[in-house]
């Protein structure tokens, strides 16, 4: 699993704050205040606590455009991913994320599948969604320790 300790932190010091990452970030334009450059800088200057307690961290969609354009080849998305993992380990999980995680634990899907979804699919000529193989899903979730994480 991606964790901050396992991440090549030396590379982060090569960031010269050109802001190409934030300028390229679709999430930054959708969510006011989400700013990958700022997260990197805060992490370096104020430490991990300051970053993982901020719920905005979870806005990253891991699209990796920031990494594509970073002139210093810093793995920005990997950093955000590992910070999210760390946040989860320490119990800083935003309510909405927790709710959808719980949904996966319960139903094997992140979103609730209502009858309406089935009727839309039928109209579009799609087969109804298959049953979730809950045993398999539970096995995976057990191994990843997600149930413990969600508490």
């Amino acid at each position: 699993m991606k964790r901050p300790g396992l991440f090549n932190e030396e590379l982060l010091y090569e960031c010269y704050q050109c802001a190409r990452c934030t300028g390229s970030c679709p999430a930054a334009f959708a969510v006011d205040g989400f700013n990958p450059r700022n997260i990197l800088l805060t992490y370096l200057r104020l430490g991990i606590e300051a970053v993982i307690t901020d719920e905005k961290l979870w806005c990253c969609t891991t699209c990796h455009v920031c990494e594509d354009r970073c002139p210093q080849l810093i793995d920005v998305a990997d950093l955000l991913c590992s910070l999210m993992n760390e946040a989860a380990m320490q119990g800083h999980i935003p309510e909405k994320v927790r709710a959808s995680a719980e949904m996966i634990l319960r139903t094997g899907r992140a979103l609730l599948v209502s009858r309406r979804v089935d009727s839309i699919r039928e109209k579009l000529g799609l087969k109804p969604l298959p049953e979730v193989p809950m045993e398999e899903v539970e096995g995976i979730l057990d191994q990843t320790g997600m149930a413990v994480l969600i508490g």
Partner: protein
Amino acid sequence: MAKKGKADRQDKVARRATAENGPRIGVYVCHCGLNIDGSLDCEEVAKYASSLEGVVLAKDSMYTCSDAGQEQIKSDIREHNLNRVVVASCTPRLHEPTFRAACVEAGLNAYLFEMANIREHCSWVHLHDRQGATEKAKDLVKMSVARARLLQPQVETEVPITPRALVVGGGVAGIQAALDLADAGYKVYLVEKEASIGGRMAQIDKTFPTMDCSICILAPKMSEVGRHPNIELMTLSEVESVDGYIGNFHVRVKKKPRYVTDDCTYCGDCIKDCPQHMPNEFDCGLSTRRAIYSPFAQAVPATYLIDMDSCMNKHGIVACDRCYQACQHKCIDFSQQEEILDLDVGTIIVCTGSDVYDPTPLTELGYRRFPNVITSLEFERLINAGGPTGGNLIRPSDKTVPKSVGFLQCIGSRSKRSNPYCSNICCMNTIKDALLIREHWPDTKIYVFYMDIRAFGKGFEDLLMRARREGVVFIRGIPGEILQDDNSYSLKLIGENTLLSKLYEYEVDMVILSVGIEPRKDSAVVKRLLSLPSMADGFFMEAHPKLRPVDTPTGGIFLAGCAEGPKDIKDSVTQASAAASRANILMAKGKVTVEAITARIDPERCTGCGLCARVCPYGAILVDEETKVATVVEAACTGCGACCPECNFGAITMRHFEDHQILAQIDALAESDAGGKILAFCCNWCSYAGADFSGVSRIQYPAEVRIVRTMCSGRVDPKFVEYAFAKGIAAVLVSGCHIGDCHYINANSQTEKRVQRLWRKMARLGLNKERLRLAWISAAEGMRFSQEISALKEIVEKITPEEIEKGIEAFAPKRLPKGEHPDEATRPV
């Protein structure tokens, strides 16, 4: 021959003088302030040195290179009748000449001086291992003393210097260098690849920080070159080959035909009738030219030329003669042929300039996709009165004047995706460009998107402040992306203002990418022709970054302008004058002494087999078919030593790097704890300098390594390596310049062959091949050197005593070739 006889006589006299008393060695261990003493115990090293055989006195001093330090050496030589001196201090690449001069002043031959490098190769790279560093320093001193015992006095020969210079490249640096030398009275050949001299400076509109018109200040210099009686200008010409050495270079130049004779009056009648239209390279393709053309109005030489790639007449078939018909003076000559010119010159100045970065790979910026995204060089052509638009800044998409302009900084610079270095000129160039737009179209909105503005030169900050006062908006944060409106072709820049931590969207009519400078695409050719070393980024390397900034490591060859690194016009001109002055010093002196490190062949032992002549990169060995004896042409021999290991009869002596001198160094290092040590052979020009560089950069590596310097890795005889293993040394590193970058053309290709032969032999004998390592390390690769040593250290840790024993048996003295008995290595002088 008479001269050689005299040298031999002098040799004999000197030898007798030193042989009378046996070696009397003085050892000086330098503290270098805290540079050495800070991480090893100099006093202990000096005490240890005094116990070594042949050492008469050993001292440690604060700064041995100081006047007082040198005086001490001189008085000791006289007082104690010293006949060898060893200084343990910094790299011999820095102070060997200093101490040699001190020895000579006290009456000691310069070649009886030896240096142990305990700073770059010891104290600076083992900062946290005082014990290891002290032990290593002792070893290095012991090795130097062992070598010093066997040193021989040598007599240097003088070679004359041809008082003519070659300047490669006719940009502003080349022009300045050529004019300086020509004014000093030397004949100068100026070789330019393009049709006119002028280079990049001719392309740009104004210069910063004074806003002078670029071509207005350059054109008078260009025409001066054209009419100077001492300058022979060769355009459309390229250097084909360079042979020879300092003071005596033979250069072959290929001159392409212009197809227009010198009678051309530059009237322009011919171009009007030419039917062929081509993109104009001088205008970055923003305009067209004909097949018969002149690159720009102020071109020197002021004659037209025909570009045969675009002309309809090819291979002698005349399909169109409209230009010929139009020319009243009948200056057009389709029958002109390529010429090869042979030049003899004493010095060479390399001013090959630079290319600009092509931002096409940075797809998010849309260069070449969006017509209104242009580079700074294209902008220079657009705003230049002599350019395609007559100086009107217009958008390429619809030929309208832009109402708003955005500059993007650091495009192609300071980035691992393009070039990692700062290109030096782009910040000021952008500020100048912004002010130019302000001057002509005051209502234009100008945004500069930057990371850092580097305004470090004289008058630069003033210009930056003026731009701010005049309303140029500076925004910190490079846009992540440029989007184009497909109807209006205007551009949207999206990004983050990092000072406000706010996202922005700016709409502008035109974007100018402030592109960086990179080495010329054909710089590898120049590098190979002149065997110049270059930095990792491709720019040519100076002999010393601070103290010899325009010299190359090759004597008689100098650097100026952007070929050495990105720089502005002022710096290029300064450097060109400096290079011309350095060349002038050589040529005014008229002669230069060549280091007495050349090969000598013993006619008694030589059988005339010719193996040595085959590997000599300079063809300096001639084999007389009749007498069956090979001789060395001393003036052509550079002392690489590649020939020496080839000889099966021990007939070749590499002066000052003799076999028994090197074997004695190996003996000295193997005396104690050989099984834990690494022997590294480093070539003087690349890997030794690379090891120096890791010292200068304080890159730490294991202290087990001991370096033996040879001029070239080609000097490393397989028997040295075998001898080391026979002495129980754990691992051997053979290192040299990268293949293709060898200071001695291709001598290191012999190294590769020999090491491969050794590997095969080791495999046959059942030895661990990993104990012998081959590495190519350039002078700029300090990190690489330390990595190689660390890798070897890991291997050494795994080697068992049995393996070492096996190596000792396998290469025991009986297996040593051609009577190199170890006893011989330690024979008294």
